[in-house]
């Protein structure tokens, strides 16, 4: 039994955000609850169930993939998304176990972008646009949301939109931890666009090493125009690792995580290159 005092089912996004505004910090949105229910020990005044707002489902079309915030992770693991949004497919497949994936939602996982979130990292690497409802309703690119201090107030994530996967593009998602149900030690996610074996666009995100996912924009931009080689992958991975100072905690030492950042970014980059159809030369 958890110390949750009241459970309210919101029937519309307006009702949910209005309730959140009127109660304030004592009220929290609840979607799948697979992280929240087991791990929150403190009493909570009001839980607002946002899983019945009609915000579930995936729409592919017009060069975009739109995912409703309360879409279950298991519903991302469909053949259509393997082709049009491979990063979502891969991140979904590595998230915990089937039992969790049948309940956990994409928006819920994203909103908790601090440590346990895998999708914060995956979506940061793919450059998703996040639609938010509430008083400050807006659509914002995920890296801007991150630099603006993430979500607050009555912000309710309603939709996540990605550009559909195109030719010459590749994605990599490398996750390392004790086991699949545990919070990973390090996640590296890479999105690559290449032409003629050269980097046209590169996005790198690292997760689980600090309180929020980290977007390594300068390191990625520095690789644009270079040929994708084993040497470039090593150079980028070293820079990524060198730019971060993960701290020691009960899960692993900072040095160990620093090395894992190098390895995970390298693996994700190599996977993305492979998916983009590049044969990596030394």
């Amino acid at each position, binding site marked *: 039994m958890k110390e949750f*005092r009241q*459970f309210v*089912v919101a029937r519309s996004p307006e009702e949910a955000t209005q309730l959140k505004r009127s109660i304030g910090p004592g009220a929290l949105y609840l979607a799948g*609850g697979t992280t929240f229910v*087991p791990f929150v020990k403190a009493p909570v005044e009001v839980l607002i169930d946002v899983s019945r707002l009609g915000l579930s489902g995936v729409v592919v079309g017009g060069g975009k993939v739109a995912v409703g915030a309360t879409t279950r992770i298991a519903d991302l693991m469909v053949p259509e998304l393997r082709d049009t949004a491979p990063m979502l497919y891969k991140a979904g497949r590595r998230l915990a176990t089937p*039992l*969790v994936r049948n309940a956990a939602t994409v928006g819920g996982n994203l909103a908790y972008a601090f440590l346990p979130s895998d999708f914060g990292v995956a979506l940061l690497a793919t450059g998703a646009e996040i639609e938010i409802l509430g008083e400050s309703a807006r659509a914002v690119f995920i890296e801007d949301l991150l630099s603006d201090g993430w979500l607050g107030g009555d912000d309710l994530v309603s939709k996540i939109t990605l550009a559909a996967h195109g030719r010459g593009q590749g994605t990599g998602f490398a996750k390392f931890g004790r086991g699949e149900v545990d919070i990973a030690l390090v996640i590296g996610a890479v999105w690559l666009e290449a032409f003629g074996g050269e980097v046209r666009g590169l996005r790198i995100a690292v997760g689980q090493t600090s309180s929020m996912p980290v977007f390594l924009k300068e390191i990625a931009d520095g690789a644009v125009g270079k040929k994708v080689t084993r040497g470039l992958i090593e150079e980028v991975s070293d820079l990524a690792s060198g730019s971060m100072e993960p701290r020691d905690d009960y899960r692993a030492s900072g040095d160990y995580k620093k090395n894992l950042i190098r390895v995970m970014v390298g693996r994700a980059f190599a996977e993305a290159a492979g998916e983009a159809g590049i044969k990596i030369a030394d």
Partner: protein
Amino acid sequence: MLIKLNVNGEAFEVEAPAGETLVEVLRRLGFKSVKDGCYNGTCGGCTVLLDGRPVASCIMLAAQADGHSITTLEGLARGGELHPVQEAFLEVNAPQCGFCTPGMMLTAVSLLRENPNPTREEIREAIAGNTCRCSGYVSVVDAISLAAKKMSEGGNR
């Protein structure tokens, strides 16, 4: 709050505090096959089918399941006749201590509905959330393979 659940085809109305998890309510209603194990969604002992899909009922509040259909192990046998998955588990002696078995069988039922002829690898992936601390996975995979065979050969459900 008052919660309406359909468990194994039977309608229940139950008063549950907001913080009560689904496993707690189901056990209170007498569905003791639903095991309360780790309470953090890791072990899979509390597996039930929610609208046909396996979920960990210990990391879901009962209130979240309001209005939904739930299948527990008690709902698999019909009129005294075992489900082919249950028969298969018996035939290959898949349960050891038995604690994980209800969850394993429910996950198997859901898998075989979606994928009537799974490979051993697909079976292993499907039961990844159901931990057997006796580590008797080989016989569990054998049992699910056998169940698939029974069901494709004209077994019921």
